[in-house]
């Protein structure tokens, strides 16, 4: 699979204007600094610092409620942040006055519950973004969508509606929908958590192919085996902070922090590692 790099960006690199010293492909793909986010009195993210290099795949692990999903939603600007900044390909996307729609076109997200559009065919699900947000001609959007559906092995389902597909197929379509925007960065939010165990494999296989193709990804996951295989780095989130991070081999075999050890012990007891 080829890497959808910024050079292929169909938006005509609209972010070039604000990209001063660091152009795409030179600096880090994603920089998060001092990110804080509260819902009412509950502070969910308490100062997150994280840097992703180009083509890097970083997995976020941690208990439910540790802030993994919120972090991803903040990066996609689906949640306004309270403090800190987020920089994608050299552009500060959390700066005031930034066009959120333009930013979101460059950052794909795949949700735990797929969130496909139930009233549209698979093909329309995948072409909606390219047609409406990128303003591609319908024929061009369709050609692009079919290309991605071909890659995920569901081209024959293009005319079906989502409710006719298995969970694994739906999630693969959701990934194709995000990829059809040719994003610079892909966020995956526990994308196998809602799947029957026998359907997890096909989705993880697809993500692995994307990683091999060079896609920069930030992945919240409970699949530790998958994280160990695919991640260049693993971050353990605990109570809204990155408590520990490192290469997967070190994280899973010799975690430094007691909280990390506890978490991994529970995962092992549950038979998930």
């Amino acid at each position: 699979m080829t890497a959808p790099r910024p050079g292929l960006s169909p938006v005509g690199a609209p972010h070039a204007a604000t990209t001063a010293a660091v152009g795409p492909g030179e600096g880090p793909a994603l920089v998060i600094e001092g990110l804080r986010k509260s819902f009412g009195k509950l502070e969910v993210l308490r100062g997150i610092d994280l840097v992703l290099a180009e083509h890097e795949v970083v997995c976020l692990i941690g208990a439910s409620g540790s802030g993994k999903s919120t972090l991803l939603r903040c990066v996609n600007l689906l949640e306004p942040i309270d403090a800190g900044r987020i920089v994608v390909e050299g552009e500060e996307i959390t700066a005031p006055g930034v066009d959120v729609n333009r930013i979101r076109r460059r950052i794909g997200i795949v949700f735990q519950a797929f969130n496909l559009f139930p009233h549209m065919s698979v093909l329309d699900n995948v072409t909606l973004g390219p047609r409406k947000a990128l303003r591609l001609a319908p024929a061009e959007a369709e050609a692009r969508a079919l290309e991605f559906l071909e890659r995920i092995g569901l081209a024959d389902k293009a005319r079906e509606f989502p409710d006719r597909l298995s969970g694994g197929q739906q999630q693969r379509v959701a990934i194709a929908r995000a990829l059809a925007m040719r994003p610079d960065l892909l966020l995956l939010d526990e994308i196998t958590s809602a799947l029957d165990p026998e359907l997890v494999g096909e989705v993880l296989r697809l993500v692995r192919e994307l990683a091999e193709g060079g896609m920069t990804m930030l992945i919240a996951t409970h699949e530790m085996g998958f994280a160990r295989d695919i991640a260049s780095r693993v971050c353990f989130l605990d109570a809204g902070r990155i408590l520990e991070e490192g290469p997967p081999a070190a994280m899973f075999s010799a975690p430094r922090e007691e909280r990390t050890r506890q978490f991994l012990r529970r995962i092992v007891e549950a038979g998930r590692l």
Partner: protein
Amino acid sequence: MPASAGRPRRAGQPSAVRSTLVAVASTVVFFGVVAWVVVSSPGWPAVQASFFNGEVFASSAPSIVRAFWVNVQLFLIAEVLILALGLVIAVLRSLPGPVFFPVRLLTTAYVDGFRALPGVLVIYILGFGIPGLALPGVPVEPFLYAVVALTLVYSAYVSEVYRAGIESVHPSQEAAARSLGLTRFQALRHVILPQAVRRVIPPLLNDFIGLQKDTVLVSYIGVVEIFRQSYIQQAGNFNFTPYMVTALVFIVVTIPLARLTDVLIARDKRRQAAGGVR
């Protein structure tokens, strides 16, 4: 699937054939008794003569059915305007954020106001009040004010139906649309509204049936429609049979729509049970 496969029949439970027979028998007995009570009442001959007079029926029916065409025009034109205006109001009322507070305030006042007022009052006030201002260039056609009044009243109800539909679409659908870089309006137009409208088609049809019947209210401002025409016929014949003609016309027109609404509701239920909405 044979009935016995899912739920074994217990001893003493009636079979399907027997259930049908019991239903038919009880229906016949019930309506037979009602009919007998009515027909054997002391005033029946007089009521029959003034409400069910065959000759008057035959002579008044053509003009009454012709007058119904005015009602049909009324409710068709008004329904198109109602569906459009109701949607606009619902969308404006759903706009989030402090900037849109005045918009929400105005639309809420509109919806509250026109749901509070009896429809016939709105028809009166507009139909007599506005032409009464005698402003130059302002039309005096009562038909026009009838359409406007019905549109104002019904769009308030219909906007609430739309709003319920919009709120029934899970926020994750909007998140998915916005995450692709669609604007708020695009997400509404392509993702939220298509799902919302599909879900509220049955209640919209319900309101359409209500509108059809409420078109008779405009007879009060001098539109000669079916109710006015049956009054004219009644006065001319000294007989109430023309009203029975009118009743029959409404039954013939609205019952198929009511059945269609039920069919659509049943279909939606089946879809939800199957786990998906198209």
